[in-house]
């Protein structure tokens, strides 16, 4: 065969192979069979050293992955919907992204995740660990000893959930003082406090709060839900003020505590007022819903995700990726955040139309960032202590849980884009 004919034949073979699928598009709109595990597939790809892209505002925040066997296998096993596409299709997608409110964010490295969670399981669930385990995303459990003794910079992302950083054990003393699990928890925390040279639990938890703040300030990402949001802020603002009831530190609250709070030391709150009555099951007026105070309790509504500019605000856009823009609300020890207590620089990611509170907020601190989501479990709106854990196999498309997993992947973005 003449040389030129061989060259033509070789080119034809090469062209044919390039026309075959080379990418996997994981849609995250209603075409996706399992949204939550899709995050796991993407995370797993990053763990194996594969680069991915997050196509924010395109098909519900789709993921673009290379078409390699282990990714296909993982997606097939998990029931994650994917579409094999070639370069031409990818180019078409990129053109659409360029001309619309969308963007392609490279994901380079799987973040190192730590979950602040006590060694013994309390009788309530952690929605974040449920989501991580369901999606197959590994994490490290840390508690007070690790936070105080270790260098937290070994992690990229820390999650806080139900912990009361004011050291008042979520005021569960009011209803569960004789419950064995409550007694165990209190003893455990007292022993930890003594071991680290603290006089009581509030002092211990404030020190933990300060270390977490430092972690964020030095470049870490923090995601907090439920009571951890509000109590973290209170703990940071009260480093030198006694805001804990007598049952937790032996002394009553400083009667002038409200005026002595140093809100500049917090991250999200500009000013709020403490709940001065030890018998009232609330911490402050940060929470809009006050679920555990019957006389103040607000009914649940729905909250709406804010639509950001993907190219100008990629961070906020990543955090609100979802296939639903209106999501049913859910209670928590802290369900929401009153608008009037938030710092002006706080980005509101989700809000309830017409309500004085918001649901989901984000901000920067130093080199790092934090995100707060109110509520306990997106698929258990009325959650109570002792309730069985949510089975995410029954909620593979949960729009609320997607917000949690957005926060998990967000630190994997190539560089931390800045708002302009």
């Amino acid at each position, binding site marked *: 065969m003449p040389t030129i004919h061989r060259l033509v034949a070789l080119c034809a073979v090469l062209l044919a192979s390039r026309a075959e699928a080379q990418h996997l598009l994981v849609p995250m709109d209603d075409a996706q069979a399992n949204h939550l595990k899709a995050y796991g597939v993407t995370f797993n790809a990053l763990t194996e050293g594969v680069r991915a892209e997050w196509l924010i505002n395109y098909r519900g925040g789709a993921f673009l992955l290379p078409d390699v066997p282990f990714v296909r296998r993982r997606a097939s*096993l998990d029931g994650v919907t994917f579409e094999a596409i070639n370069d031409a299709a990818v180019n078409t997608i990129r053109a659409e992204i360029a001309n619309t409110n969308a963007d392609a964010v490279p994901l380079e490295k799987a973040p190192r995740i730590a979950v602040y969670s006590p060694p013994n399981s309390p009788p309530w669930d952690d929605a974040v660990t449920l989501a991580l*385990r369901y999606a197959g995303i590994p994490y490290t459990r840390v508690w007070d000893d690790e936070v105080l003794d270790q260098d937290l910079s070994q992690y990229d992302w820390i999650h806080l959930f139900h912990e009361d950083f004011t050291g008042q054990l979520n005021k569960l003393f009011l209803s569960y003082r004789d419950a064995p699990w409550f007694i165990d928890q209190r003893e455990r925390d007292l022993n930890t406090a003594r071991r680290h040279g603290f006089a009581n639990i509030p002092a211990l938890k404030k020190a933990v709060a300060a270390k977490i703040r430092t972690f964020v300030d030095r470049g870490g990402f923090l995601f907090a839900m439920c009571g951890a949001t509000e109590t973290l802020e209170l703990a940071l603002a009260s480093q030198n003020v006694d805001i804990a009831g007598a049952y937790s530190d032996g002394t009553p609250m400083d009667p002038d505590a409200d005026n002595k709070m140093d809100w500049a030391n917090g991250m999200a709150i500009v000013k709020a007022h403490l709940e001065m009555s030890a018998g009232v099951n609330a911490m402050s007026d940060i929470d809009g819903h006050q679920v555990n105070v*019957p006389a103040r309790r607000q*009914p649940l509504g729905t909250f709406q995700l804010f639509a950001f500019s993907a190219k100008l605000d990629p961070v906020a856009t990543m955090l609100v990726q979802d296939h639903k823009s209106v999501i049913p609300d859910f209670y928590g020890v802290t369900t929401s955040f009153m608008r009037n207590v938030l710092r002006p620089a706080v980005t509101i990611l989700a809000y309830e139309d017409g309500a004085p509170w918001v649901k989901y907020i984000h901000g920067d601190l130093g080199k790092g960032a934090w995100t707060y989501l109110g509520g306990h479990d997106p698929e258990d709106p*009325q959650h109570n202590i002792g309730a069985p854990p949510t089975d995410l196999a029954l909620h593979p498309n949960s729009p609320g849980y997607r917000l949690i997993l957005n926060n998990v992947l967000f630190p994997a973005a190539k560089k931390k884009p800045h708002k302009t």
Partner: protein
Amino acid sequence: MLTALTLGWSAPNALRAQAQPGEGALRRALELENAAKYREAALVYRDAITQGAIVQGMLGLERTFGALGQEDSVLPPVETLLRTSPRDPVLRGVLLRTLRALGRDAAAQRAFDAWRALDPRDAAPYREYVRILLMDRRTGAADSVLRQAVEARGGARDFATEFADLYATMGRWDAAAAAWRDAIADDQYMDQTASYSLMGAPAASRDGVRQALTATPTMPLVTRSALIRTRALLELRWGSPRDAWRALSALPPNDTTAQTWIDFADEAEHANGALAARDALEAAYRVRHDPALVLRAAALSLRASDAAGALRLATEVTPALDSARAAAEALPLRVGALAEQGKAQEAEALIARYGAHVTDAQRRLFARALAWGWIRAGDIARARKAAAEGGGENEDVVSGWLALFDGDLDAARAGLRTAEVKSPEIVTALAFISRAKVARAAGIGAAFLALARGDSAQASRAFEQAAVSVPEAASFLLGLSARVAAARGDETRALALWRQLVEQYPTTPEAPEADLEWARALQRRGDRAAATARFEHLILTWPDSALVPQAREALDRLRLAPDAVARTDR
């Protein structure tokens, strides 16, 4: 459009119950309402109110206007009546319910506040309003109202039912069960209501509910009995008739309990709890000595495939019956039970003992039963003779089985298709016949005969051997062989067959099922890695199989098992 009725009368003191106020009008109105003539009924209810039947008339208006979708037409009459009878609880309830139906939540709140203001210690307003709030699942508001009620009444005891409903609506099942326990202590007839309220408890919460409803020795007998009944009703509603009977059997045996047991048997029978119903009827018989109870128990036992139990009961009750009744009611059960046990000779002797008391029609029925009995005994020749003596259709279930045992698949298909109740055995046989392309298969006959005789070891081997002679149904027969082996506990043999199916017949419908069972067997043996590999193999090889969700669920459970979590928590 809506037509609002105005009532231009004054009705002072009209709410006091009168002997027969407006009875005729009420009767006419009810007839019209039952005939769905709501407009006409509303007019007559208005007349009834005018004649003094205030309460019944107003309730009738509420129903009929509700049926017409004209709830707002209820407001004028009820508000008029309330001006003269502001404290009437029925009228107040109608007002609240109507405002709720109209979606006027703020007005309903004001109506509640006005009612409550008349007498803050009156429990009725709180009860009615809480009920309405819970219908809309407004648990926060209901909780707030109940706390006001507790404060006003100085205690929560009067509102145990409402708290129970609130907690159940909130999903706080332990608290709901404890509240129902308190309510039942005050009113033993709350058992049905309590069980209905708690039946929604998820499986994970049921132990807590059971614990909360456990009677203590210090409780009065009526309370203990009511709690036991509640437990039993719950277990029945949760799909556990045996657990329900276990709870109910603890009641002290007396005539009232016997009736409770009989009522339970009725419910259990309809809830696929034939054996639980049988035990309840037998226990009731020990108290009431009514043979009808035992006969019914024996029939249930036979239906639930407990032939020995049926025989025992039917034999026990026979001396209490006269000969005619024994022949008509007990004898068929005894013959049927003996036939199921393969004791055809005993059954023939029993029939002979009743001589003239057995009618010709009965003899023909008994002949078919005897045929089945001879099949179970393994004597096909005598089975055919009995079937022939029974007459009947050439194509019926017994002839179908006989044909199958002979390996005559065409005749078997014709006979088995006539079965009114398609038992699992008949379904299996017909499924095989539909796959086979041959008209005769001798080895298959021997296999099904062994199964009918209860020789599962021989049946499993025979099905495996028959797979060679019927290649178009080989995978089906191997799968059947594996199922039979697994059912008799021979998991080693079953595993080998499942492996053969997966490896040699991957394109057949039986392959995914075999892979799933193989994986489950490995999981039972504690080989997590191998089980994981098998579940993954199923998902990846047959992604469209209906069994894939089960495999995924099993994989998730394997991954999330406690020591698997330790691997995840680095």
